[in-house]
């Protein structure tokens, strides 16, 4: 070891050394190679396996929901699990109202912020704003829920709502939780628009704003749709914050603007609040897994649709780079 260090035959630019520990050379090289490749292949395929397993276990525990309860009752308006009424409609509509509110806030906010970041912001602002948005993505949902509970709810109550724990309170928090997803995905989409398109438009005398509105946004359309869908997925699956701030009343809100200012109860919050108190094997337990099936299916559809856009976007970007 010492001898090597003293004879200075070492090349000047030593490439980075290998990892510290080595694979023991007990097995012949080909066999090691074969085994490792199998292992790696299996790790890759295990992701498919996990999705299938998740679905299988949800079905296994949740299937009685759809077999034992008549559909008419299942989509009924009464969620009184202790009395045997398992109407999911209040929970579904609760989730829909909160998510709709969140999207109404987050989509304009997120898209415009992404446009500002991607097309107009000077470099120094971008270097401050992007890490901030990453930080927002890192704040645990329970912390945001806690702030909603101690700060936001009292403020909303003071503004004249009968209670501060409403769908709107949840929507506001969910909107900020969905923002990082919406901003980063739509910024990617804007980035993928070839520079030639912008240059041509500017050369024809359009202002930067007209170029953004008429050329860049239409070209980035599919990516923007994907951003919105992923944002919806984020919002509909969020649990702890909505559990804390939406009041958890299993009512069906009356359709209209006032529905945002009533306490509601979402599917996710129902699972979180009630799973701890039910015995395994009861119908209530099964129904909570049944709600899990609904959530899984909704997010699966949203993400599968969105991933089709990812494919096309990535391909286009690669072409743009060539």
């Amino acid at each position, binding site marked *: 070891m010492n001898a090597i260090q003293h004879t200075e035959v070492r090349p000047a630019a030593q490439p980075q050394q290998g990892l510290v520990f080595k694979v023991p050379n007990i097995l012949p090289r080909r066999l090691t*190679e074969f085994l490792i490749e199998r292992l790696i292949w299996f790790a890759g395929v295990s992701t498919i396996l996990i999705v299938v397993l998740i679905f299988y276990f949800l079905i296994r525990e949740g299937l009685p929901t759809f077999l034992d309860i008549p559909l008419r009752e299942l989509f009924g308006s009464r969620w009184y699990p202790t009395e045997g009424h398992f109407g999911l409609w209040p929970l579904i509509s609760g989730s829909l109202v909160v998510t709709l509110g969140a999207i109404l806030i987050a989509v304009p906010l997120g898209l415009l912020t992404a446009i500002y970041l991607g097309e107009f912001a000077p470099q120094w602002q971008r270097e401050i704003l992007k890490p901030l948005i990453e930080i927002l993505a*890192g*704040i645990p949902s*329970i912390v*945001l829920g806690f*702030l909603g509970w101690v700060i936001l709810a009292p403020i909303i109550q003071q503004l004249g709502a009968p209670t501060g724990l409403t769908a709107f309170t949840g929507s506001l928090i969910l909107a900020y939780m969905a923002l990082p997803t919406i901003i980063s995905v739509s910024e990617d989409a804007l980035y993928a628009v070839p520079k030639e398109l912008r240059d041509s438009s500017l050369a024809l005398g359009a202002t930067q704003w007209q170029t953004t509105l008429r050329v860049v946004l239409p070209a980035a359309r599919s990516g923007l749709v994907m951003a919105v869908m992923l944002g919806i997925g984020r919002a*509909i699956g969020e649990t702890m914050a909505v559990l804390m701030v939406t009041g958890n009343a299993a009512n069906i809100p009356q359709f209209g603007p006032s529905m945002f200012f009533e306490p509601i109860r979402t599917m996710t919050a129902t699972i*979180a609040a009630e799973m701890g108190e039910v015995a395994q094997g009861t119908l209530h337990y099964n129904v909570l897994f049944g709600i899990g099936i609904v959530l899984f299916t909704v997010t699966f559809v949203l993400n599968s649709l969105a991933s089709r856009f990812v494919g096309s976007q990535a391909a286009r970007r690669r072409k743009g780079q060539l």
Partner: protein
Amino acid sequence: MTRQQQQKFSVGCITIVAAVAVVPIILIIAFIVVQGVGSINWNFLTSVPTNGMRDGGIWPAILGTLILTFGTAIVCIPIAVAAAIYLAEYAGDTRLTRWVRLAIVNLAGIPSIVYGLFGLGVFVLFLGFGTSILAGSLTLGIMTLPVVISTAEEAILAVPQRFRVVSLSLGATRWQTIWHQVLPHALPGIITGVILGLGRAAGETAPILFTVAAFHLPDLPHSIFDQTMALPYHLYVISTQVPNMPLSIQYGTALVLLMIVLSLTLIAALFRTRMRRRRTW
């Protein structure tokens, strides 16, 4: 309005909108720091809760979160890195690969509460681990997979092709090339992804609700088959489930959780920028 005025007006508007999106982030963090910093002292960080959690410290919850984060790392890192190697180095453009990618996108989108149900169904009940650190770590580890896989894959793909070509031309096998050439260069990027993923896992509440978290435990856990308290769940409990809880303890707990999670995010971010600057190829 001329087009130039329209341009000015519109850009002004979206500047304001961007501010509306970003300023609350600063406010949130500043507010928690200001409110919580007063209750943080050595005693708060290192002693157990007393008087129905209304006094004393939060050490069992901090320790629980650290243990769970460590457990998550053990479960997640080997599978995620191997899967990333598969995608970046071995996978061709086959139907199987497309399925794997679809699976990863969907894993990333599954709500955390559904992971909680999955953990309850598989690890707690079916495999009989009970509500335990083992069950919780496995659940969190699986939940963290997609984040780590995609960042690790990007890091591996960023290693220039010529490194591989040279190594292979010297007679190294494919795996030797990956192990001695590709992985060392991709390591900083992989670590960034791992830290980011662990930051997410440390702050999650829903997946640990039914798999590991305990309302209040006087003792620290002794084995991986014990329950443990954890900071996110503890914050939920003391802010909504315990009446007459002093606000200072709630803010203190929120601050400690926020600091653990954000410092992980920050370390990851610093790591990434340093790595980019150092890169010589």
